[in-house]
Each structure stands twice: as structure tokens, then as C-alpha cells.
């Protein structure tokens, strides 16, 4: 706000004082929100680190198992068994609120199947296929868990970033400018008061003389 645009009136001063009070209150609340979000973020970060580690481990295992399956059974047998899978895993997406941030809550169904629910028979397949299927089911579950945690983490990071920007804007731009304008109006009003006093004194002296 440029000072030349400020009208040095008492009502403007009252208005500015109200704005400053509101900005300071907003600043304090946003600072508390930012700190709260950072705390939440660190909690989620720990969880994300664990789930990412688990995801990498399960991915490595699944890749190893498919290589083993291809080596022992061959891709043709594996593809043929894979064709028997009828039920496709599904995910349900809900949302929850962490300090005003809407984050996803993902739940899955039909991912982990028992040996007898996979659709292939036991007499035409071997255990290496079971192990491969299990490792891929574990991987899909880890991906779904990771997706929830990492999306939460990203959303929290975005919110922390925007809150930080608002806090900084209030701290270094809005409040100083409003304070400066208030001081300016105060100074101008004092100046006008002094001029008025001086004028009155002059008139009084002239009428006496």
C-alpha cells in the first residue's frame, strides 16, 4: 500500500487498527497451523519411510519371483495360469481431514487371495506360481498403502508451503505496511492537530490585539 493513497482521517486510522489487529490474530493462527502441520508431516514422514522401504523390498521380491517363475515354469505356463484370474482387485477412495487438509483414505479389496481363490487349479501348477502370486499381491497391497501415505505427505507439504507463504506475507508485508500506514496517519493527524492549535492561537492573539 503506497502511503500517498492513504487518507489521513480518523476513521481510516480506526479501520487500519482493526485490520492490524485482525492480521496479527490471523498471523498467530496461521503460525500455529503451520507448526501443527509440520508436526503432522513428520509423523507421516516416518510412516512414509517405512512403507516406501516395504514397497521397495516387496518390489524386489516380486521381480525376483517372476524371474524364478519364468526360469522354472516358463512364461507360457505363467501366462496361462494368469488368465485364470477373474476377480480384479478394487480400491475404495474416501477422504479424511488433517488440520483442514483433505487427504485420501484408500482401502482395497480382493487384493490378497487365498490359494484356493486364485482361479487356477492345484494339480496343473506348482508352488513357485503360488509364491509369485503371493509376492505380487503383497506388492499391490504395499503400493496401495504407499499411495495413501505419500499422497497425504504431498498434500501436507503443499499446505505447509502455502501456509508458510501466508505467514511470511503477513509477517513481512501486510502487517508492516499496515503499521506504517497507521503510523503515517497518526503522524498526519498529530500534525493537523498541531496546525489547528497554532491557527487557533494565532486567531486568539489577533482578536486580543
Amino acid at each position, binding site marked *: 500500500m503506497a502511503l500517498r493513497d492513504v487518507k489521513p482521517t480518523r476513521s481510516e486510522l480506526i479501520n487500519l487498527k482493526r485490520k492490524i489487529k485482525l492480521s496479527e490474530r490471523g498471523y498467530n493462527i496461521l503460525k500455529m497451523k503451520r507448526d501443527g502441520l509440520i508436526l503432522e508431516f513428520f509423523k507421516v514422514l516416518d510412516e512414509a519411510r517405512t512403507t516406501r522401504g516395504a514397497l521397495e523390498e516387496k518390489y524386489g521380491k516380486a521381480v525376483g519371483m517372476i524371474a524364478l517363475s519364468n526360469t522354472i515354469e516358463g512364461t507360457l505356463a505363467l501366462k496361462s495360469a494368469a488368465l485364470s484370474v477373474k476377480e480384479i482387485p478394487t480400491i475404495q477412495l474416501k477422504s479424511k481431514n488433517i488440520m483442514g487438509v483433505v487427504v485420501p483414505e484408500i482401502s482395497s479389496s480382493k487384493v490378497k487371495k487365498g490359494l484356493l481363490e486364485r482361479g487356477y487349479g*492345484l*494339480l496343473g501348477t*506348482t*508352488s513357485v506360481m503360488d509364491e509369485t502370486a503371493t509376492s505380487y499381491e503383497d506388492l499391490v497391497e504395499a503400493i496401495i498403502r504407499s499411495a495413501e501415505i505419500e499422497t497425504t505427505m504431498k498434500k501436507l507439504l503443499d499446505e505447509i508451503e502455502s501456509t508458510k507463504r501466508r505467514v511470511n506475507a503477513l509477517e513481512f508485508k501486510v502487517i508492516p505496511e499496515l503499521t506504517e500506514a497507521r503510523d503515517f496517519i497518526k503522524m498526519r493527524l498529530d500534525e493537523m492537530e498541531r496546525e489547528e492549535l497554532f491557527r487557533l492561537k494565532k486567531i486568539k492573539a489577533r482578536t486580543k490585539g
Partner: protein
Amino acid sequence: MSAIVGSAPYIYVCTRFRVRRMKLIPQEEYLRMLQMSLPEIIRLIQETEYKREIDELSHSFHGIDLIEVALSWNLAKTYQKVLAIMPEGLREMTESYLRRWDIQNVLSILRGKAQGLPPGKIKEVLIPAGELNRDYLDKIITCAEPEKVLESLKRWRLFPVLARELPRAAESGSFSSLENELYKQFYHDILEETGAGIKGGKEFLEFLRLEIDIRNLQTLFRLRVNGAKGEVVTFFIPGGTFTVEELVRLHEVSSPDAFFDSLTAQLKSRELVSLLGRFRQKNGLAPGTLHEIESALTLMQYSRLEMMARFHPFSIWPILAYIERKKQEITNLRAITRGKQAGLPMEQIRNYLVM
């Protein structure tokens, strides 16, 4: 099945198979291949009898996929040739033995149709190494629905099982019960057909019982490791030395030690007892080690087959030994190329080779 009179047909066929066996890749060659890089192995395979299939398929497949499909095509062609040179009597027996490939192909077609796959994609996973040859299977995969596939298979030996189980499979969306029933019928038929009228038939019956036992043990181990509960009676094949009831009872034993104790007490094969004893000491039954037990059981079965083929040089055994040897060659070449591609250690690949 018509019985074979005299030894002449056996001498003729077994001699032909002995010559064919000489052409298979020897053990030292596999060990040499393990030391080679992947491009070197592929070049070596291209210089062998697989060249024709590799050339034929090179426009549709690339890399290791090309090698694997070419190996499977070669296997299918070889088995078709085996059936072609077989005299009456032995041919029926061999057809029955190879029917497991038909089961695999029919199941792949049905599953592919249920998933709505185009015929070309289904064709990629077929290995027509059984009684149902490539032309016949090509005709079946053009059928639009599983019901039409069923109609086309009316003359197939296992049609009654298929007709009985397919509606249930279509309703439940799972082909597992159909698959199990087809394999059970396959073993039932082959047990029925084996025996009288074929040289070495009595011993072959024993061998089949061993195979059923091994298959049942593998199923039993898988059910235990995966904690399968409920009705397990349908997963076991009747006809082995264990009755289905005995296997169900074994499945119900909860303690691992009691399970191994009762299993080994009932086993008649000393080889099986010592093999299971080794695994019991090592790890017991754990999800990661189950395929090692399965590989060891399969190896044991193959070594028995080889031994019987040496004991009965002019019987059904050399023929079956050739059929299995050829399959092993394909399995070994595939294991080496796939294992090398996946970067598996040489020792690990070696463990999966059947030599």
C-alpha cells in the same frame, strides 16, 4: 487298447528313440552354456535343431520370448512326430501320456475365451504337444464362446469331465475345479489303460503311482504352507499309494513334527523318506523353500524313469524316457536363457537344471 504281438515293434521303435536320444543336448553342453553370455547362448541355440522354429517365428517374437516360443514349438513338433512313428497299441498309450498337454491347452483356451482375449493372444500360450494338434487347436480358438469350444471338443477323451464341470466353472468364474477334475480323470484313464498288453506296463503302473504320490505330496505341502482350510479332499488324485482319506488326515495334523513323522511312517519309497528328511532338517515346510522340495521330487522321478529305461531297453520305458528327456532339454534351455536374462547366479540356475 490293442496288445502288441512280439518284440519286433518294440525293438524298432526303441532303437529309433535311442538314436533320437543321442541327438539331444548332453549334460556337458549345459554346463558350458552356463559359463556363456546370453547372446552366445542364443547363437548356440540358433545353430541347433531349433533353427527352423526360430526362423519361422522371428517375425512375431523377439529376444528371449522368441527362444522360449520356438523351444515350445519344437517340443510340440517332436511329440507329434513321436506319435506318428508309434505302432498301434503303443501309440494309444503315448497319446494318453501326452494328454496332459491337451489339458493345459484346453484350459488356456477356455480361460482366454472367458477373459475375452483375441485368438492370436490365446494361440501364443498354446503348446500343441498332445493328441490335439495345432490345426485342431487353431480351429477351436476361433470359437467365440467357451460353450462353442466345448462343442468342438465332443470327440476328446476328457469331454465328459469338461461337459460336467464347465457350466459350474462359467457360473463361479473359476476354472480351478475344472482343472483339478481334468487332471484327476487324466490319471484315472492312464492308470486304467496301463498294464496288460504292454512290455514294462506293470513297472510303468508303479511309476505312475509314484508320480501320483509326488503330485499329491506337492499338493499337500502347498495346502499346508498356504494354510488352506476346509474341503481339501477334491485336490488329491486317487490311485497312488496313499489313499485320499490318508492325505486328508495328514493335512489335518497341526504340528509340523507330527506331520513329518506320520508322513514318513506311511511312505514306502526310501528315496522319498530320505529326501523329505533332508528338507525337514534344513528348513521344514516354508513358503520360500517349497519349490526346492518340488524340484527335488521331480528330479527323483526323472532318475527313476532313466533307471527303468536302462532295465527295460525294449519296452514302453525308452519311449517315455525320450519324451521326458526332450521336455527336460526344453526346460533346461529355457531355464538357462531366462535365468541369464534375469541375472540369476550361475549356481542357482544350475539347481533348476534337470541333468
